[in-house]
């Protein structure tokens, strides 16, 4: 048995025979020719053929991995049309009196070099895209277009590196796994493998490729990035078990998609997702969350070098609301301060930032920042089902002030003739012991509560959550915390509000039953935990 290690880009286990993917011999000869016009004509024809092939690859990708991932081939088609690229090819043919193949290869090297020399690893990986399209033109020029068909058996495809178009061209039903000696996890090939749900390990190193041959038996562990060639019995048994468990888990989760979050005795609960950027919406929908229970608006501030404008914010909120198509979207207003610092806010350095100038405290003392955000939120409210919640609440007067600001902003917008939804729910985070203790009074003011268990734990147990040395004292299941949550739930329901949990504890399935018994109405968790929590809910029987 020989073990190799690379980087796993899709977690799954595959076992089978190795097939070494051979690239065509692309050694390009420089041939002198006087007939430049003929060479340029050949390039045009090869480009035309390449575009047609890319169109059919794009169509295949569209069916197999979806539009977002198929777009790269549209980009490839556009790269083929790039003026600079084409001028460079023609210039070389004209000025050096050389063959088309050579001109394309030199141009490809130059452009790939430009990308490779950029300081951003994502852009460096684009060099592979330039090479991919150029090799396609060259293949068409030389008449060596492969159809990517493999043998009859399912194989573990091993290659030096795979271009995106090579990856998608492989027959998915015949590929057990991809293993490449080189390549980065930023490459489109890695992204495609992930979306094709095929275990893939990249960057295993050249030694691997020189030591394997077609037909060798191997096991690929996409979780750990390990490859075992000619595995021993013990390893085979272990990984077979791992493969079975993983397949069972995936099957279970797949069967849970579209199912209700309901206990055996018929109690229903909402399971929403927490996200921190517009880019995460895909994961929310993929995992079948019923809504967004916590949208952290901080990203808009953290990503900017100055205060985000009302317009910028409006577009971001509108996009989230539209993408969720009528499902609940709860956006938390600015929660800057403490561990999340932004230079342009000009916040003073504090001795004790967790207990300092943060979140709602900034919003209420610097109303211009808060108002800009509220205006953007209410303007976006007509595009979906919006909820707004305020973080770090400790008193009735803070809530009253925040609500008054909402009222002002709404009136102002209406006066300006801008439509505002009348069904926006307003809520607060319960993340301080103070808020939980006076939750009876707070519930009368708002539509909902959302318990932020991370801060609630830190403040209740007086335990800094950033200090690893006191982790043993930071018992997230501490009775004090559970009592505060229970108390908040009772007070919410008595006073006509609903209550959810959006902290890490919401995904802790050892507590799901406890939360259901408390009457929690909603759990908001990371997108990848939605189905796991649903599974837990569906196995609970509250009548027992």
């Amino acid at each position, binding site marked *: 048995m020989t073990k190799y290690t690379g980087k796993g880009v899709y977690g799954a286990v595959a076992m089978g025979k190795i097939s070494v993917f051979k690239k065509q011999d692309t050694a390009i000869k420089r041939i002198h020719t006087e007939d430049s016009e003929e060479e340029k004509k050949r390039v045009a024809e090869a480009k035309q053929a390449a575009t047609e092939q890319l169109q059919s690859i794009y169509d295949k990708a569209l069916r197999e991995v979806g539009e977002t991932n198929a777009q790269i081939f*549209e*980009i490839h088609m*556009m790269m083929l049309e790039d003026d600079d690229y084409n001028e460079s090819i023609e210039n070389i043919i004209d000025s050096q009196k050389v063959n088309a193949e050579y001109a394309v290869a030199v141009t490809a090297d130059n452009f790939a070099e430009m990308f490779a020399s950029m300081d951003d690893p994502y*852009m460096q990986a684009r060099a592979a895209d*330039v090479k991919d399209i150029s090799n396609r033109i060259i293949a068409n020029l030389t008449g060596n277009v492969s159809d990517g068909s493999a043998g009859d058996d399912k194989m573990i495809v091993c290659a030096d590196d795979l271009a995106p178009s090579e990856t998608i061209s492989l027959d998915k039903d015949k590929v057990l796994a991809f293993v490449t000696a080189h390549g980065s996890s930023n490459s489109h090939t890695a992204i495609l493998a992930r979306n094709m749900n095929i275990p893939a390990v990249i960057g295993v190193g050249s030694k691997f490729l020189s030591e394997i041959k077609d037909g060798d038996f191997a096991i690929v562990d996409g979780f750990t990035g390990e490859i075992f060639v000619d595995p021993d019995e013990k390893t085979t048994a272990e990984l077979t078990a791992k493969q079975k468990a993983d397949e069972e888990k995936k099957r279970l989760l797949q069967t849970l998609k579209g199912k209700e979050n309901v206990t055996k005795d018929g109690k229903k609960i909402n399971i929403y997702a927490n996200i921190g950027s517009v880019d995460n919406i895909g994961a929310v929908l993929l995992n079948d969350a019923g809504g967004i229970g916590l949208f952290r608006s901080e990203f808009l501030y953290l*990503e900017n070098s100055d205060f985000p404008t009302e317009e910028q914010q409006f*577009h971001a909120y509108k996009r989230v609301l539209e993408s969720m198509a009528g499902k609940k979207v709860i956006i938390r207003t600015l929660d800057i301060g403490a561990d999340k610092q932004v230079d342009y806010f000009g916040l003073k350095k504090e001795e004790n930032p967790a207990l300092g100038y943060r979140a709602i405290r900034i919003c209420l003392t610097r109303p211009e920042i808060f108002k800009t955000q509220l205006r953007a939120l209410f303007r976006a409210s007509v595009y979906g089902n919006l909820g707004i919640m305020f973080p770090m609440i400790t008193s009735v007067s803070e809530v009253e002030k925040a609500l008054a600001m909402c009222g002002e902003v709404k009136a102002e917008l209406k006066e300006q003739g801008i439509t505002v939804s009348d069904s926006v729910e307003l809520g607060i985070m319960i993340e301080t012991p103070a808020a939980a203790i006076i939750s009876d009074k707070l519930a009368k003011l708002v539509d909902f509560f959302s318990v932020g268990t991370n801060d609630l734990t830190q403040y209740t147990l007086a335990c800094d959550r950033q200090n690893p040395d006191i982790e043993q004292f930071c018992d997230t299941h501490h009775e004090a915390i559970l009592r505060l949550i229970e108390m908040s739930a009772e007070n919410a329901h008595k006073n006509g509000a609903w209550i959810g949990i959006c902290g890490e504890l919401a995904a802790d399935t050892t507590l799901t039953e406890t939360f259901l018994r408390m009457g929690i109405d909603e759990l908001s968790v990371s997108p990848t935990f939605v189905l796991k929590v649903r599974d837990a809910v569906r196995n609970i029987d509250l009548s027992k």
Partner: protein
Amino acid sequence: MKTFSYTITDEVGIHARPAGLLAKKAKEFESVCTIEKGGKSVNITKLMALMGLGVKQGDTVTVTCEGADEDKASEALKAFFEETL
């Protein structure tokens, strides 16, 4: 000539996909549209040059449109930046 400046908020900046979409958008217009970052200016319709500019989150770029339909072009590009970048 129409000009506007914009600071990129998108996490990954003008990477392959948005660059492709942006170049496509600019091609809809007759006007010559250029984008400038740190003293380097390229034609927006030239995809590879646009990607080569390496525009990242937090970078401020200046877009200039010049031609018969410059008003429309500038407006459309501005909307594109605000919506996706």
